[in-house]
C-alpha cells in the first residue's frame, strides 16, 4: 500500500507538476500550522479517504508549474491545482492497490482547514522536494 502511494505521488508530481519528489526517511509529520491539506473521499472495492498535505509555501509553485504560468496564480486556483494533484494521486494509487479490475468513485477534492481524522492512517508516504516537504496519507474503512 505504501509502495503504491510512493509510486503514484512521484508519477503525478513529475508529470503534472514538473517537480521531483524524493521519498523521505524522516517520518516526522508536517506541522499543520504551516501546511495545507486536501482530502479525496472514495467509494468502491473499499471505501476511504486520501489526504495530501504539503508545506503551504509550495502552493504557488505547484500551481504555476501546472499551469505553465510565470505570473502569480490566485489562491483559489492554487487550491484547485493541489486538489487535482490529490485526485490524480488517489485514482492511480487505488488501482495499484486494488488491481486493474477494481472500480472506484472519487469525490471532489475538499480543502481541509484542520486534519480531523481520529483513526490512524493505513499507509503514509513522506516526500522531500526542492520546494518543500509533502506527505500522503491513506485511510480505509469497511472492507479490505
Amino acid at each position: 500500500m505504501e509502495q503504491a502511494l510512493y509510486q503514484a505521488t512521484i508519477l503525478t508530481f513529475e508529470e503534472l507538476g514538473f517537480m521531483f519528489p524524493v521519498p523521505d526517511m524522516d517520518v516526522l509529520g508536517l506541522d499543520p500550522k504551516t501546511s495545507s491539506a486536501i482530502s479525496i473521499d472514495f467509494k468502491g472495492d473499499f471505501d476511504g479517504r486520501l489526504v495530501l498535505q504539503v508545506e503551504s509555501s509550495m502552493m504557488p509553485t505547484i500551481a504555476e508549474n501546472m499551469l505553465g504560468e510565470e505570473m502569480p496564480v490566485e489562491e483559489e486556483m492554487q487550491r484547485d491545482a493541489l486538489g487535482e494533484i490529490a485526485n490524480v494521486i488517489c485514482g492511480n494509487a487505488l488501482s495499484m492497490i486494488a488491481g486493474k479490475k477494481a472500480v472506484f468513485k472519487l469525490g471532489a477534492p475538499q480543502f481541509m482547514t484542520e486534519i480531523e481524522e481520529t483513526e490512524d492512517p493505513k499507509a503514509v508516504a513522506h516526500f522531500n522536494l526542492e520546494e518543500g516537504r509533502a506527505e500522503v496519507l491513506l485511510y480505509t474503512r469497511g472492507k479490505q
Partner: protein
Amino acid sequence: MKHIIGIADMKVSSKPDDTLITYALGSCLGITAYDPVAKVGGMIHIMLPLSSVNPNKAKENPYMFVDSGVPEFFRACYKAGAVKQRMIVKVAGGASTHQSDKEDQFQIGKRNFLMLRKLLWKNNVLIESFDVGAKHSRTMLLDMETGDVTLKIQNEETKL
C-alpha cells in the same frame, strides 16, 4: 559542413549544407530546434538542470545548464531568423548512466529532462518528439537542409 557540438556548447546555423552533430549524450540532453520555413535551427548539448548550483560557471558558460542555456539557445535561433511558433523541438539523452547507487541517487538525466519540460511548458513550447532515459549513450544529428534529426544508438540509426 559538419559541425561538432561539444559538451555545454551550442551551434545555430542557417546553411542548408550544414550538419550539426553531438556525440555521447549520456545523462546530458541534446536539444534541436528547427524552423522548416526559414531553414534555420540549431543544437545544444546541456549537462545539468539548474544554474543555481554554480552561478559563476553559468555566467561563464550558460550552455552548461538547462535553465540558463535553453533560453539563450532559443534567442540565438530567433536572431538567425527562426520564428518561435514554427520551431520544431526534439530532445535526446537524459540517460541514467551512473552505475553505482550513490551517484544514481541524483538521477541527473531524469532531472535534466524534467527541468527542460517545465521550462518549455512555461514558455509555450511543446516537444515534437523525444528519446530519453534508459542507460545507453546517444549520438544526435541535425540535417539543416531537411530538419531531420537522426539518432545513433549502439550503431543503430533511427529518425527522431
